[in-house]
């Protein structure tokens, strides 16, 4: 690892501007943290409620830097073979068969053959390390994976290298920009957090959210966007099971546009509330507290 890799961005302000050009409106803290993750060569751990744009951030960084996006979607029970690499044993068996028929046997011959790059199936982590083009590695929903997988990530994320016993250690020629996301359904281990820069993405302030809604759904218009954002903020202030996030605000704006509604009165909110609130009890609570009926 050279450490002399050219940085992707020149300043935190530039991060903000370029992300905005890609349609991702980041606040100052987000822009600074992305900038630092690149400068210090550290992975970026993004935590926050569902639907605030954690995955989008990684995609936007990939777009503005012209990098390829390699994505590792975590789930319960994901293991080394799915995350890092796997030997293609079917192909290896086939090779053994062919060699035996051709009379070329013997362990030394075989070892050289069947444990070579040809039989290696690279999974996202290894692929991101091996790529020579600029790369953004997105490790999505890290909290869904088991704790052992985090141990696996440690080697990859601190040294940007992967050790394969049969082949040796593969070191990244070009360090990927790594983004990990988490919905914090569980606390990630201290060891992993220590290696990352941490960014807590929360619901944005009113002005930014309005800008985001207008960016994504321009048809909605300034005035309706304003009403919508204020209403969503009122909803968030209630004690709900699942507070609406930006994704819901955007969906709501789309719905209102599709239905041709140009003002958000009690009637409009009542009929479209299902887009924003996903629990029946939440909807009932909102109906009483906002005096919709």
């Amino acid at each position, binding site marked *: 690892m050279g450490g002399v890799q050219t940085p992707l961005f020149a300043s935190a302000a530039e991060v903000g501007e370029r992300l905005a050009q890609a349609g991702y409106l980041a606040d100052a*803290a987000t822009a600074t943290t992305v900038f630092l993750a690149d400068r210090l060569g550290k992975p970026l751990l993004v935590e926050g409620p569902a639907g605030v744009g954690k995955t989008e951030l990684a995609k936007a960084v990939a777009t503005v830097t012209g990098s390829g996006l390699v994505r590792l979607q975590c789930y319960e029970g994901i293991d080394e073979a799915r995350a890092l690499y796997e030997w293609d044993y079917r192909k290896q068996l086939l090779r053994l068969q062919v060699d035996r028929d051709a009379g070329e046997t013997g362990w030394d011959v075989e070892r050289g053959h069947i444990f070579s790059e040809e039989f290696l199936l690279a999974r996202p982590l290894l692929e991101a390390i091996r790529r020579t083009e600029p790369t953004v590695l997105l490790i999505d929903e890290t909290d869904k994976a088991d704790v052992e997988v985090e141990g696996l990530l440690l080697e990859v994320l601190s040294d940007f290298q992967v050790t394969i016993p049969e082949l040796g250690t593969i070191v990244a020629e070009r360090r990927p920009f790594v983004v990990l996301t988490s919905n914090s359904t*569980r606390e990630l281990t201290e060891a992993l957090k220590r290696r990352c820069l941490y960014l807590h993405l929360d619901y944005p302030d009113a002005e930014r959210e309005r800008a985001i809604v207008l960016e994504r759904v321009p048809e909605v218009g300034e005035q309706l966007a304003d*009403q919508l954002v204020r209403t969503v903020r009122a909803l968030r*202030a209630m*004690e709900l099971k699942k507070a609406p996030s930006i994704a819901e605000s955007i969906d709501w704006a789309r719905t209102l546009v599709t239905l041709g509604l140009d003002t958000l009165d009690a009637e409009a909110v009542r009929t479209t509330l299902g887009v924003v609130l996903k629990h029946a009890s939440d909807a009932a609570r909102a109906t009483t507290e*906002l*005096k919709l009926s």
Partner: protein
Amino acid sequence: MSPTGLLGTLEGFTAALREAGVPAGTSEVLDATRVLGAIDLLDRSQLRAGLAATLVKRPLHRPTFDLLFDLWWPPAVGDPTGLTAGDPSEEPGEPDVEALRDELRRLLLDDDDEALRRFARLAVSQLGHLGAQPGRQSWFTYRVLRALSPETLIAALLDALLAGEPRGGLAEQVARQQLQERIAALRAYVEAEVRRRVAEERDRDQVARTSLPPLADQVDFLRAQRDELAAMRRTVQPLARRLASRLAARRRLGRAGRLDIRRTVRASLGTGGVPVVTHHRPRRVHKPELVVLCDVSGSVAGFAHFTLMLTAALREQFSRVRAFAFVDTCDEVTRLFGPGADLVDSVRRLSREADLVRYDGHSDYGHSFRVFADSWPDAVGPKTSLLVLGDARTNYRDPGLPLLKGLVDRSRHAYWLNPEPRREWGSGDSVADRYGEVIEMVECRNVAQLTDFVGRLLPV
């Protein structure tokens, strides 16, 4: 600022963070140092974001970080408004409160946070100073807020926001919410500014120590304010989700069950008929029945409500949850916490719909236990985990020890969660120590302790 000065400040800052319970380790501090070299140091928001990214890795610690950051890297030095330049003990003349209130009225309708912050600074320097004796604090939040009294502006502001729309509907609720948010922001800015001024006159470390609120999961149930309780209730769902997934992980790590022949044979086909990997059936999970018996009298209601909501949210982890509440008599409240119920609402209906008070609304443990044992004799059985919640303050009435012992003997496990600190057990009318002889009594003063307990209670 010279590099040694900057690093010195960082060192003091991280020490204060650690003292406040934010675990900033050596490698975090090293990273923070590298951050200082990479960012534009003149941009305070960059500095804040950069340090937060390296030093704070749990949202729980962020308020502490922000408060300390404002003390170590104050947004301004001295009197930035330039109004009270010169000798601070000299009275700056009568401040024009009405002009300030007019300005505030305009700012509250707006979205501009920076302007509001500037206004808070101005207001503090004009209204917050009290001619001080030497060595005494001379800046006060309450003086500013009392003079401005933003709450009294709400009615007029609502009229402005609604612009002729009728009151009482959606529009008013939304507008109200907006104003409350802005006033809360104003209050926070004023508090921050007052802290800054006090820290300038006095010792910074001391201000840091005295003004730090406890971490959210360390807030005492019995001392929590209304908004703190509401904030706690909002954490119930995420907390339950975290507990449940921690449990699922523990279950997966536990021993596997019997061999699954079909899946093993099928998997062996990939390795030429040799069963290299065996597959096992998942173990049957033992799910206990949970009976919660809780004191919901005024003194412990906040604690009882939170715990009830948490157990209700964890319903799937038990084969059955039954909830009983009592003050001086007992009633079943399970129906209020059914699937899909709005937990906040359930708590509100609790005292209204259930029959809990016989005489005066003071806890009567003895009678409540008797009613419970007589009316629902089959509620506690050999599969039941029994959870009693309460402060064990009997108001010098009969504690009903034999009744409780009978319940404990019939149950599989029994615990008593007491929100009072252990050193107060047995003092005054508390019979916690006597109850402790027949049931395992656990101190449960804050969310952290409760989380810990529920984690241990739940089955693997």
